[in-house]
Each structure stands twice: as C-alpha cells, then as structure tokens.
C-alpha cells in the first residue's frame, strides 16, 4: 500500500470484494438476523408463527439443561486449552531442538488428524472406547491394568472427559502449525545473541521463544474458545449427548430443540444465547490477558 500508483481504483477493489461479501451476507449475516427474529416467536417451522416477545429468553435463563451444556462447553474449553495448546507448545519446543531428525515427517503425522472429518474421528474413538472390542481396553488389559478400565462413554461422571480426548487429539496439529509459523518469524539474530549469553535449551524457550510468541498464543486461545463453543459433531457421533444430558453441549441442545422437538423459535433463542456467551467469553479472555499491555 505504499505506492499509490499501484493501488487500484476504489471501484475496482469494491468489485473484487462484492461477490465474497454477498455470499457471506447471504449465508451468515442474513440468517443470523432471521434467527434473531425467530427467537421472539413461538415457531415450529412451517407457516404458523406466534409473536411471544421475550418468553423464549425467559425460559432460556431458567433452563438448567442449557446451563448444564454451557458447563460442559466450559469443561471442554478448559481441557482443550491445556491439551491442545499446551501439548502443541511442548511439541513446538521439541521441534526446535537440533537433535530432532525428520522434522517434516513428524510435523505431517501430527497434522494428519486435522484434515480428517469430525464424524470419522467420532466413529474412530467410539470404537476405541468400546467395552468389548475397544483398543483402549485391549491395551489396558495387555498391560495388566484391568483395574483402570471404566465404562468410558457410559458413566456420566467421566463422559465429558472421554469425549474431549478426540477433540484434543484432533486439533493439536492445527496449533502446532500455527506455533511453528510464529517461531519462524522470530529473527535468528536473537537466538544467536542468546547463545552467546549462555541461554540454551529450556531457558531459550522460556525467555525468548514463548515471550516472542505471546501474540500468537492469544490468537490460539481465542480460536480455542470460539472453536469449542460450537463443538458438535464429535459428541453427536460418540454419545448423542448421553447418557441423559451428561455430555450435551450447547450447539447440540439447540439442534435437538430445533429439529427433534420442533421448537425452532426456542432453538433460535438458544443459538443467540450461544453467540452472546461466546462473545463475552472471548472479550473476557482478552481483558484478562491483554489488561497490562497498552494496546487495545
């Protein structure tokens, strides 16, 4: 943008942007507003709609199943922060080590699950957790650890942890790639001078790599929150929200209300609720993290 002569006319820029913006408006912005409108109606699909004002929202605030699924979302976010970002960070640090050979192969293998469809991952892990034929129980048995075997997907106490594992496993590679890219943008001179000052190994990571990546880390945390607030497919496949509602997440609760119970108005209200909760979580995380720094 430095040279004005190379800059196309505003009209041209607008023309290039228009198709994308139009599509985006059509499939995201407009439905969003429609769903906001639906949330004020008693609407079961079809032609009959009855305006009921804020009644849906009044129900939503008192709906323990909704807050239960919000709690599940929070647990998944927490586990993912530790699991996805934490493990990815550890692997990144290892990847920086000069001792590691065949870096490209490691990177590709770790990234592989990211491209697999969530439905496939869900099915895969359903089989892994299976009581009689599951890989997990087979491993525990062959290691002589039968006492550790629990009904992975059947006990409401642990089910939310069980269903979080595939989600964590799948997305480690995604954050790894982001972190590796961030590390590559750290100038080599800094490392060289650090070497001269005697900062090697873990010290190098603690005092140079991670502080210089902190912006990327913030983005990763935000992506983690946004991604896990709308998590749906893994859990839909693995447990369907069961047993009972013990692994229900908000997105699935909205789906069940809209399309299984035919309460589209209430389902829309739930969606709006998810939007509000997600945005406030993200803003909160920014406040907590970015508070001391001077930028907005």
């Amino acid at each position, binding site marked *: 943008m430095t040279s004005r002569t190379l800059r196309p006319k505003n009209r041209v820029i607008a023309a290039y942007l228009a198709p994308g913006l139009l599509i985006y408006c059509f499939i995201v912005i407009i439905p*969003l507003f429609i769903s906001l409108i639906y949330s004020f109606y008693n609407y079961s699909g079809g032609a009959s709609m009855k305006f009921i004002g804020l009644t849906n929202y009044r129900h939503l605030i008192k709906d323990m199943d909704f807050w239960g699924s919000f709690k599940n979302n929070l647990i998944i976010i927490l586990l993912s922060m530790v699991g996805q970002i934490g493990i990815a960070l550890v692997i990144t640090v290892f990847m920086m080590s000069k001792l590691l050979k065949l870096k490209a192969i490691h990177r590709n293998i770790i990234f592989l699950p990211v491209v697999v469809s969530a439905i496939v991952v869900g099915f895969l892990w359903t089989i892994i957790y299976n009581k009689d034929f599951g890989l997990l129980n087979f491993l525990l048995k062959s290691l002589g650890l039968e006492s550790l075997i629990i009904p992975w997907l059947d006990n409401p106490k642990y089910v939310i942890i069980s269903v979080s594992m595939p989600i964590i496993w799948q997305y480690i590679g995604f954050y790894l790639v982001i972190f590796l890219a961030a590390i590559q943008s750290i100038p080599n001179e800094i490392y060289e001078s650090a070497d001269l000052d005697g900062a090697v190994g873990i010290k190098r990571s603690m005092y140079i790599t991670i502080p210089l990546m902190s912006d990327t880390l913030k983005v990763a945390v935000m992506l983690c929150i946004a991604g896990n607030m709308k998590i749906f497919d893994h859990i839909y496949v693995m447990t369907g929200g069961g047993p009972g509602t013990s692994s229900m997440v908000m997105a699935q609760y909205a789906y069940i209300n809209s399309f299984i119970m035919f309460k589209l108005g209430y389902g829309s209200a739930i969606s709006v609720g998810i939007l509000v909760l997600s945005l406030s979580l993200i803003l909160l995380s920014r406040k907590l993290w970015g508070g001391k720094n001077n930028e907005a």
Partner: protein
Amino acid sequence: MKKALKCLSLLMAALMVFSLAACGASAGGETNSSDSAASGAQQSTASSAGSQAPVTLTFTHMFPAGDTEGNAIAFRKSLDKFKSENPNITINEEPLSHDNYETKVRTLAAGNELPDIFIVKGSMTSMFIENKLINPVDDVINRDPEWKEAFLQGAFDDFVVDGKSYGIPFQMLNTHLIYYNKKLFSDAGITAFPSNWSEFTDAINKLKAKGIIPISLGNKGNWVAESCILSTLGDRYTGTDWFKSIKEKKGAKFTDPEFISALKALQDLAKMDAFNTDLNSIDNMQQKTAYYNGKAAMFMEGNWAISNVINDAPKDILDNTELALLPAVDGGKGDAMANSAGAAWAYNVNSELKGDKLAAAYKILKAVTDADYATVSVESNAFPASNPKNIDKSKLAPLSIKYLDLAAKIKPVPIYDAQLSADLIQVMNTGLQELLIDGISPEDLAKKIQAEYEK
C-alpha cells in the same frame, strides 16, 4: 503489526461464532408459490385434455434400492409395477436411509419445503397439522372401499387427530418382542419362557450366574428403551385406558403410581444387571451383535428385527431363536398379551397439491399400500398394514411363521413415541438413559415428564 494481528484474530473468532449461530436458522425463504400456481394452471388445461396428461411428482421416502428389509423390497416392486402401468406419471424419487430420512423430513417440514409425497411419523402429525402441511386422507380412502377394507384394524390409530386420519399406513409394527436363545435358556436350567415377573427375574439371575448377559440393550439412540421396552412394560402396569386419558388430556398423569411402578421395574432390571454395562454407548444394531455371538440370551426389539435376524444371525443362533413377550406384572392393570403396536409411519401428500397432481399422488399411494403390496411385503418377511390377498407360506422363513403365530394372539396397545408429541418423547427418552444408569429416580423422572406434558 500487533494491532492488525489482534483485529484479525478478533474477526476470526467472531466469524467462527457467527457461523454457528447461523446454523440455528433454517434457510426458509424459498416457497412453492410459483409451483402451486403452475399446478393450478395445469389443472385447468389438464382436466379438459383428459387424464393422460403428463404429471411429474416428487417423492421422498426411506426405501433405497439396495435395502433388504421386507418393506423396501415390496415398495420397489410395487412402485416399479406402477411406473410401467402409468407412463404419463413421472416420479422423481429421493430415497434415503431410515434415520437420514427422519432428519430430512423434519428439516424440510421446518423449512416449509416438503416434497409432493412423503412419509410422516405419528409423533410429527400434530406439528404438520398445525402448520397446514398435510390434509386428512379419510375422504380418499372412503371413496375406495376395496382399498379401505384391506387395512388392518388400528392401522390408522397413530395418525388420528380430532377424529380424522392424517396418513396412509404401509406397515404394522410391534415395537416390543423378546428374541431369546432357547439353548442358552435351557443350559441355564430354564425350561420355558417365564410367565410372571418373579420367574422372569429368576431367569435373569440364572443366566447371570452362567456368565451370560441376560438382555442385550443398545440405547445410544435413546429410543430403544422407550419404544421397545417401556411402551409395553408401561401398559402392563397402567393399562391402556391410562394412556388414552394421557393422550386426550383427560386427567391421567405421568406421576400416577402405576407409571412410576413401570419406571421402577425398568430401573430394577438395570440395577440387577440384567443389561450389558455399555447400554448407553452402543446402538440397536450393536445390541444384536452380542446376541448373534451367543454372549447374550435375549434382546428386545420390534418385528422389523426379524428380517435382520434371518439375514444376519449365524445359523445355530437363528435356529434357537424364539419369540416371546414381557410376562405379566404383579398388580398390573394391563393385559399380558398387550404389545405396543402401530403403523408409526404413514404416507401423506403435500397440502398444496391440487387437481391431476393430487389424483396421481393418491394413485401412487394406493399402489404402495393396497392388498397386492401387502402380499409382496409378507412374502419378503415384512409386516404390512393391510391384509394380503393370499400368501404362499412356503416362501416364509420359520422365524416369520413363529412371529405370525404370536402376532395373531397379540392385543395392540399404543407405542409411546408414535402417539405422543416429539418434545415430550425427547424428555422421556433422555430421562430413560439416566434412569438405566441410576442417575435419576423413577419419581423424579416422572415429575420431569409430567412438567413437560403440562407445558
């Protein structure tokens, strides 16, 4: 740079969240107004041109070509015959598997974009009627006595609202049957299938002592426990009058002691380890696997599983398979031969169809529900909603004959998920998953269901 990165990150986060909220809204919009206008125009010209004018209809159903289930085979045969006899009627089919079909028809109904002919579930009728998506079918059926007479008694019950029928049934389901392995039973020292509740629990304990899973249950889809067990078990305790009173809102409550006893009986079975421990994480296909392997002595599912057992079970298991019903319960008001039965699904046509299109649509529906269809269906080991003309019993598998003998003695009572509304059923089904792992008491679950019922 930092600021740009921050802006970008916030934008991306917002984007991801937005894309979710957008999912909640259906794409509605598109209406059939141009379509119905066209059909109206067609009607005026077509009626003068005679009945051979070309008609095109869209038909979404749940019988894909490769399906080996009896109803699907019969459907394909009948529809192919219809197509060759009526070259002027073009049918644009969209076949889907059962579960996908259910999702699709719910979504289409919510978006007001139903095809010309579709299949509706009993629990959906009230929502469809409320939105004027379907019309009653009584007039059409009454005009054709031969068609009408062929239907079995009670076939229309799942679709009757305010005295009018809103669907043409094609199958007759008994959602509860106990498939049991008589060899495993006799190995455990049980000579005959138990005829009362204490014998039944004794038998379960004997099977357990042998290291066999007494009842294999796969309730991940959360309808199995309610549709295949509780609908019948409930009736054993409450009797059918209670259900009628519930359906017509005439005073019966889910918190009545009889219904709570039924829930309690189900939970007691789970508490005495009558079921496998992973009952909430396997589905109804997987519940049969344990039975096929000889690891489980019983499973409970409807009559649709008969063709599965015939096609999939190893021969020695199939030969030892017998059918039974839940035994009578102590102090129950219901009949011991009562069995949750009904059509569950039925055809109907889009309420916007008119003239020739409407006539053609009903003509198609007659072809896939009448006595000729029933004959093919029975011979494919399925159970249609009409009486077949004459069947060649030698074409039937032995298990089908066992079933037909049992079915002749059965007294049909309502299937909960075919007659109660979808939101109530969702609460009940979710609750049953918890009930079976002792996560909620029968009394609390009954209160929860009652609260949803009163909404």
